[in-house]
């Protein structure tokens, strides 16, 4: 078990220096599945001190304590949902690094796609307008010059 964790540590330190720093805390788990759950939970919960980091990457003191809490709860056999509810009850939904998909967060989750659709729409209208402008019919004089140019260069 320990060897696996060290291997994971090494892998993490190769993947990036930050997770390696934060992972100095060593936790013991009963099964690899528990360890995986610990990793995924601390990936999806926010460090409240640094705010733009998740718990697994953060080196803040509070993040260490919260990782310790998560570890304790996992070993006690709490489910992921219970652990997440525990965090939300104390720190609010802000603690979720990955916000829940619910009515309040629809704008957050789907807003970018709506913006893309609007953007593509505007682009299409714009391109069409431009296209139309350039295909305006030539007058007699212009047509004669065009024919002249084409025949001169294709000959």
């Amino acid at each position, binding site marked *: 078990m320990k060897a696996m964790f060290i291997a994971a540590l090494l892998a993490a330190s190769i993947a990036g220096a930050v997770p390696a720093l934060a992972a100095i805390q060593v936790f013991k788990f009963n099964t690899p599945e528990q360890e995986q759950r610990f990793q995924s939970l601390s990936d999806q919960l926010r460090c*409240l*001190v640094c*705010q733009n980091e998740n718990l697994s990457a953060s080196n803040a*003191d*509070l993040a260490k*304590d*919260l990782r310790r*809490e998560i570890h304790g709860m996992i070993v006690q056999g709490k489910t992921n949902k219970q652990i997440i509810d525990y965090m*939300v*009850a*104390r*720190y*609010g939904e*802000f603690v979720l690094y990955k916000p829940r998909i619910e009515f309040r967060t629809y704008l957050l989750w789907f807003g970018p796609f709506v913006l893309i659709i609007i953007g593509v729409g505007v682009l299409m209208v714009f391109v069409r307008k431009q296209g139309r402008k350039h295909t305006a019919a030539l007058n007699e004089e212009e047509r004669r010059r065009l024919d002249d140019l084409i025949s001169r260069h294709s000959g």
Partner: protein
Amino acid sequence: MARFLIPLSIFLALVALFAVMLQRAKEPGYDPRSIPSPLIGKSVPQFALPRLLEPNKQFDSSILKGKVSLVNVWASWCVECRIEHPYLLELAKTQDVPIYGLNWKDKRKDAMAWLADLGNPYQLIGFDNTGTVGINWGVYGVPETYVVDRAGTVRLKVIGPLSPQRWRDKVLPMIHKLQEDKG
């Protein structure tokens, strides 16, 4: 002309929006550092801690019942607590409301030296050196101050140091309201 005016006015509108939001970010409701507490309107998390100054005695959540009180979370390693401290002493003198302390993730020796140095505004102080009680309260950045009503319900949370302005605008009106509520 409109070709320039439309993008220009959109740009100016965005600039105005950003300017307003940046200004507002200094206010509590908009400050990205102050996270709304889910504890507001709920009763204080049950706890029982040894007292900082009398380790043989306890400070537990039942002490907070029956009166409006402040719970101030602090630590000797916390720089902003040092900034806040003189104001807490002042508040303690006015005796508007009892102030309880939660000494969070600290060493007993350091905390006691701090009080000896700077004075003690607290009625009682709970000693939470593991930080577990703090986590139950949702503490993430000291100093934090909670207003607790007679029933032991958390009514307000202030993140960061109390200042005369915050006290006057937010905390004192809430305390007065709660003290007038006889229920």
